[in-house]
């Protein structure tokens, strides 16, 4: 049994840990997994409803600012979700459960859709600035 390539466990192998240490670490992970849930499921209102073409540099700044906030929320949510996924794998590894089938973190359709909209908004901003 091998540890996931990306891990939140400081120790390189469960074999280096005593049973007591493994239990303590498993408890840490279970608590962390619960704490991450609100962050990974938060749904703040999107400021960019659809990509817009700026007519001036001022509008480019306005649309950039809105997209920046949306994208920062997206990074926050996806970081929490990926970490949650990693910790589930770590907990399974520490418990000695089979976790080889644990797929790498993947984004949902809504996130893919948001990324497409934000990319398109950035393209429109850069085009309006002559880039």
């Amino acid at each position, binding site marked *: 049994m091998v540890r996931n390539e990306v891990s939140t466990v400081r120790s390189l192998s469960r074999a280096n840990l005593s049973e007591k240490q493994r239990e303590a670490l498993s408890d840490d992970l279970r608590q962390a997994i619960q704490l991450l849930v609100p962050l990974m499921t938060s749904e703040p209102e999107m400021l960019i409803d659809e990509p817009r073409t700026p007519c001036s540099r*001022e509008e480019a700044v*306005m649309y950039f600012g*809105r997209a920046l906030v949306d994208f920062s929320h997206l990074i926050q949510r996806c970081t929490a979700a990926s970490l949650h996924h990693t910790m589930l794998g770590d907990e399974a590894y520490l418990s000695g459960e089979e976790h080889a089938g644990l797929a790498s973190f993947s984004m949902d359709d809504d996130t893919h859709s948001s990324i497409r909209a934000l990319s398109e908004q950035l393209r429109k901003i850069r085009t309006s600035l002559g880039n």
Partner: protein
Amino acid sequence: MGLAWWMKKAEVSAEQYFFFLPMPSPPSPTVINPQELEAIEREFTEDSVISTSTVGRLLELREQQKNNIFSDLNLALTQCTTKRMLIPKTEDLLPDEILELAEGFVKAFHLLTNNGD
């Protein structure tokens, strides 16, 4: 009409701009007045003459909002990790599409502030 005068740093990377993990220098939270943001954006849509300082202020407020989001993330991660755990790098946690988009945002930011050439 560039905003280079407003820039505090000559050039930032995506890792710095979006506070990639592990976060050595997390941002401090800032209180933002939503009415000020709304008032500035209203000015933009009212076809009035906008001063460079107002444009700079809008960008500054949006950046403070961004920083607050990463401050919240840092706080949550600090609360949920212990000394037996470590936080992986952002590059190992997020898919390439998001990392590439982060680079795109920084390029656009430099273009807007006349540092993109």
